[in-house]
């Protein structure tokens, strides 16, 4: 589903964000991407989104080769991907329903589809009763649920999460993780960058660890760090 072959990426020629990384994530996997800040987790996600291009190496996502992909093909790639971020990225002027519907509107989905699928996905994330609330009326956990709903409403094959629990307290985080687990069980590949040790340790999923841009560990059913 995601394959990197000897990928190197540096910024401004001096800071190396990823160093000769090769890895493969197969369909339906749940993968934690761990490592300290600046280890290259966010760069990995940007590369998969084709928000950035690698300096060297090949990247394949959802069966598509990203190198030299024409810019007009990028939107089609992104429709296969859902994205959740630490800061939710919700539109403050739109209600919960409108925020989720927006993701479908802008890719030209017909109104009937929107009216049918948005309530479904809001029900899935447990916000069926708050469809008309505005983001500022919601708690952090609820806002992140809206964000997950928006990422998932178009049924992407891959869900990319960049520190989704970074702004949330532990109890709320558990709820979000359960939600991501539920989404993973529908067959969606989930890649989650995090440095939340408790979450990684409790989930016992595949762990990929980056350090200074290099892949130092790839372990199925792993924990956050050695000996912890």
């Amino acid at each position, binding site marked *: 589903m995601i394959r990197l072959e000897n990928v190197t990426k540096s910024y401004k020629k001096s800071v190396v964000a990823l160093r000769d990384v090769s890895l493969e994530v197969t369909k339906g996997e749940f993968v934690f991407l761990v490592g300290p800040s600046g280890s290259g987790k966010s760069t990995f996600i940007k590369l998969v989104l084709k928000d950035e291009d690698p300096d060297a190496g090949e990247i394949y996502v959802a069966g598509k080769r990203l190198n030299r992909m024409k810019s007009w093909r*990028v*939107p089609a790639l*992104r429709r296969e991907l859902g*994205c959740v971020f630490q800061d939710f*990225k919700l539109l403050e002027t739109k209600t919960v329903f409108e925020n989720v519907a*927006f993701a479908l509107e*802008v*890719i*030209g989905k017909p109104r009937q589809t929107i009216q049918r699928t948005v309530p479904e996905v809001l029900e899935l994330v447990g916000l069926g009763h708050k469809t008309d609330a505005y983001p500022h009326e919601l708690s952090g956990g609820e806002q992140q649920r809206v964000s997950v709903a928006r990422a998932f409403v178009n049924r992407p094959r891959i869900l990319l999460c960049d520190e989704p629990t970074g702004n949330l307290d532990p109890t709320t985080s558990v709820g979000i993780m359960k939600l991501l687990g539920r989404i993973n069980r529908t067959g969606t590949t989930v890649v989650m960058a995090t440095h939340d040790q408790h979450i990684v340790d409790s989930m016992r999923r595949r762990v990929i660890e980056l350090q200074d841009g290099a892949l130092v560990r790839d372990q199925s059913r792993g924990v956050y760090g050695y000996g912890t």
Partner: protein
Amino acid sequence: MGPRWRYLTNEVVLGLRRNLLMTLATIVTVTVSLALLGAGLLVQRQVNLTRDLFYAQVEVSIFLQDEISESQRASLEQDLRENPQVQDVLYESKEDAYTHFQEIFKNDPNLTASVTPEILPASFRVKLVDPQQFAIVQSQYAGYPGVDEVSDQREVLDKFFRVMDAFRNGALAVALLQLFAAAALISNTIRITAFARREQTGIMKLVGATNWYIRLPFILEGIVAGVAGALCAGGLLLLAEATLISKLQRQILFIPFIGSGDVFAVLPVLVLIGAGIASAASFVSLRRFLAV
């Protein structure tokens, strides 16, 4: 209305309202520039309308020396009549010239009193088949015995049309500068709008909206301002036609003038240029400020 269209109209109206002052400034600048451009085009039309008419009526005057002999004059006239370039020949004697002169300057008694038939030259008034062939006719008859000078009214007309051309060029040059200012204003408005919408645009890119879908509201916003300016310019030109030209028309009867039909004929050009400049400026600034 489907979600797509509702989204578009909402975004365009919102964008225009958010920068109301900038939008107005843009529309005014576009209006001024396109009004000037339109004025230039209308002057061109006026020139085209009158130029052919005037030149078609141009006569060549062959002024005769006082000491020309009767036989020289007769053979010159004979020659002119046999020339295939010549359509019509009229002999104007000193007395005829005097009568004409008195008539033309009848409002200036000092001038008419100072002139006698003796000092005015006799001439042949020659109408050419093709007025453009003046130079050939001139070279043919300038060296003729007894001929003083061959001239036509073209020089006067040329002067008049040069003034018109200069006016047109000036109007077009200022219009060009103004269009540049309009493009800069539109570009700036786009930048402000792009900044105000950066979160929304970011999400749109993330969920896979196509580049054109993201660009369209911005570009339409520019086009709306551009077309509004063009229509205002058209209104100004119609107003100018109704007041200025109509007045001239009533005073100067022997010249045909352009009318409101000509304004309507240049209007599509103005609208196209307004929309074109606006969309080009939007497109370029979108690449810079939105990277789409």
